[in-house]
Each structure stands twice: as C-alpha cells, then as structure tokens.
C-alpha cells in the first residue's frame, strides 16, 4: 500500500538534489587538487584581464596542470560567450 508515494513523487527528492550538486562540486575541486598553490590566483587574474576586453562568466576560465613524464603542461581553456 504505497499509494502515498504518488503524492511524494510530486517534487524532486531533496537528497537526490544534494547528491547531484555534490558530484559536480567535488569533481571540480578534485580537478584543482594537486596543482600548484598559485593556480586559483592565476585563474582569477587571467579572468580579470579577459574581462577588460569582453564580458565572460565566472567559470569561463579553466586551468589544469597535467604531467607528461618529466614535463608539466599548463592547460588554459577560455570559453567566450556566443556573439549575437
């Protein structure tokens, strides 16, 4: 007699919302982990420089450090807004 479930399913369960949000933020923070301590500041400054020329979102600049053998590669990704 789980007919009450019918009423419960009207709105999304808050626990599944919590899980989705956590998966996104944890994945992002793990991506930044292990890199040099200056990365967040570098990211902010690059964002400020870009904003002198074009209005972009807070998450428009992505920075990652990859290791390939002895070599460290700084990968910089800038997403520009669609031009209307």
């Amino acid at each position, binding site marked *: *007699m*789980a007919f*009450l479930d019918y009423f*419960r399913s009207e709105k999304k*369960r*808050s*626990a*599944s919302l*919590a*899980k989705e*949000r*956590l*998966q996104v*933020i*944890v994945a992002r*923070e*793990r991506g930044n*982990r*292990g890199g040099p301590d200056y990365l967040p500041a570098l990211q902010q400054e690059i964002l400020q420089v870009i904003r002198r020329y074009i209005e972009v979102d807070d998450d428009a600049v992505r920075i990652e450090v990859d290791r390939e053998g002895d070599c460290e590669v700084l990968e910089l990704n800038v997403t520009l807004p669609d031009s209307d």
Partner: protein
Amino acid sequence: MARIVVVTSGKGGVGKTTTSAAFGAGLARAGYRTVVVDFDVGLRNLDLIMGCERRVVYDFVNVINGEANLNQALIRDKRVDGLEILPASQTRDKDALTFEGVQSVLETLASTHDYVICDSPAGIERGAHLAMYFADDALVVTNPEVSSVRDSDRVLGLLSSKTRRAEQGDEPVKEHLVVTRYAAARVGKGEMLSIEDICEILSIDLLGVVPESTAVLNASNAGVPVIMEDKTDAGQAYDDIVSRYLGEARDHRFLTEKKGLFGRLFKG
C-alpha cells in the same frame, strides 16, 4: 610500534571527539594500550567528553615545551584499563604545537602504546595538519549533509598529499569512512543522503554508520564515551566500528528505519 589513527572531518560538529572517545575506549576494552590525544589547542573538549576534565593538570603543550613530562600529563581512565588521554592546551597561541614537538611526543607514545588516536580539530589549519601528518590510518567522520561530505572530500585530498606517508612515498594512509547522525527514516523519505550516495561520492571504504541517537548527548552529558552504553544504538554502532577496524566481519546495522505498525501498513 603503535598504529597512529587520526580522527578527522574538515567540518566541525560532526562527531570527531565523540568518535575519538568511543573508538579509543573500544580499543582499550579490546585489550590494546590506547592513548587519545586532543589536538584542538585552545578549544579543549576531549577531557569533558571522556569525563576527566577535573583531573587535567598538564597538557600537550606543557610537554612540548618541557614544562612537564609525558607521564605527568597523561590521564589514566578510571573505567577502562589501558586507556589514557593527553589533553590539549587552552592557550590561545596557535603556534603552540610545533612540528618537532608533536613528532617527538607521538614517537614516545607510539613506543609505549598499541594505538595512538589523534582527535583532530575542525578546519585544515595547523592543528588539523599536525593531527593527520603522522597518521597510519584515518577515520573520516562525515554527516549525511552536503557541507560535511564536501569537506570530507577535501580532507581526503590532504590525507593523500600532506601526510608523512604521502611525502615519503610510503603506502598511503588507510582511509575509513564513519558516517554519523544517520537518520534512516529520513533517508527512506528521500530527505537525506544515503550511505550508498556518500560512499559513491567519496569512494572510500565504509567502516561504520552511527545512527542519530539521543544516547550521544546523554553520554556526553555524563562524560562517558558512548561505546560504554552497551544497550544504546550508538554504543553498539561504535562497538561494531571497533570490531570491524580490528578485522572482524560484522554486518552493518541501523541502515533501515525501525517501522512501527503504522509505517508498515503504509509502506507495504
């Protein structure tokens, strides 16, 4: 040589000190010489939870500064043989814990005990860093709640990079998940993250689940480690946790709600 176990979480108020007291008392009850060390300089509380606050004379920082020796500062538990605590200092000086001082105290404790439990302060500052630095094992205490899970993930990152084992390239710190304040009824209603959700996000081994319980506040009011309250759900959950840590296979309990007649009728 002892195993050094850090009880950590990042977030405050999730049950680190409750877990340290219960876990330490459980190991001592199982016959292991155990010392629980309070790393929360300035906000000493382990003594209160373990009911020995009036017996504190010297503390961790006094020992580091050479103002007292370790035997003067250690407090022997009156209920459990083989259980001792080293209280934190109430000084406001955040640099009171030095790296060399902590290292020397932990080495001495490790030579005379089987387990050294380091009760970490909240946050990721100096005290928390020193509490985890020398650890062999970590109990990561997490509540089924977004900020706690996120902070636990952050702490897991630190355990795998900012510890002696990580820096020396030894076998990594063994991480164990302890979920506390779990309310199975709310999980059933979809209002609270489930154990499966938390394990999936953090991807570490689950050591145990402590249900949300009135026993925890009652035990802390009385200054008794909650594991000593054998008849309570939380006490039994911590007993399972200690046994599992020591290698015994025990089924997880308290994962489903106890349904009354009414609940059974409506949920089939």
